[in-house]
């Protein structure tokens, strides 16, 4: 789907050894597979089923999502800040599509 657009908010500045709060949101319908269209046909399930965040090659959070997650899935969590700057966010969609975005932490 072309309308999958991640939005990520990192703290303005971070310090090594401290937790940094990360807020992520990805635009996605999260179609549950339970709804029916106007003709009574079931709309097939199409959701983001997994979300991961990696920092410095290590996993921060690995989330499994079900249809009960709201449209435009929002996830908030903390990273333990170390030396590395790159944070890699990955969303896995039903059907195999993968969306990745890399962000940089700003040390201050």
């Amino acid at each position: 789907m072309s309308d999958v657009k991640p939005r990520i908010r990192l703290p303005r500045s971070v310090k090594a050894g401290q937790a940094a709060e990360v807020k992520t949101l990805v635009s996605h319908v999260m179609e549950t597979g339970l709804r029916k269209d106007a003709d009574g046909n079931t709309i097939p399930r199409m959701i983001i089923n997994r979300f991961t965040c990696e920092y410095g090659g290590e996993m921060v959070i690995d989330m499994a999502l079900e249809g009960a997650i709201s449209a435009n899935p929002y996830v908030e969590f903390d990273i333990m800040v170390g030396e590395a700057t790159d944070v890699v966010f990955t969303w896995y969609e039903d059907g195999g599509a993968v969306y990745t975005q890399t962000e940089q932490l700003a040390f201050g």
Partner: protein
Amino acid sequence: MITRRETMAMGLGVATITLLPISANAAADEAIAAYTGGAAVSEGGVTITAPEIAENGNTVPISVEAPGAAEIAIYADGNPTPGVAVFKFGPAAGSHRASTRIRLGGTQDVVAVAKMPDGSFQQAAVEVKVTIGGCGG
């Protein structure tokens, strides 16, 4: 003629029937049992935060926190499918908490089950009253 004994028996039958609806959320219990592998789940150790009343069941903000937990799973016992999400915390996690927004089909309990590194499980539940359900249809 109805004897006193028969009346008592009928009363027992009614009592049994009224007890049955407790298993209405059996699907959630089964899902939790599948996640824990049937291990005993103790209360506490997990904090789940959700609004007492959610006007719109399509997007209900919830937060879970379980210090030291390896994973936290969330279940909604009144939804068509009880599973909501599983958070696995990695070595680079800054805390053992996460927040997200979920769909609730109606007023129900939301349950958080935390898997501790030693393989034990802890859970907490919170009731959310939903004004408008979020499962379409």
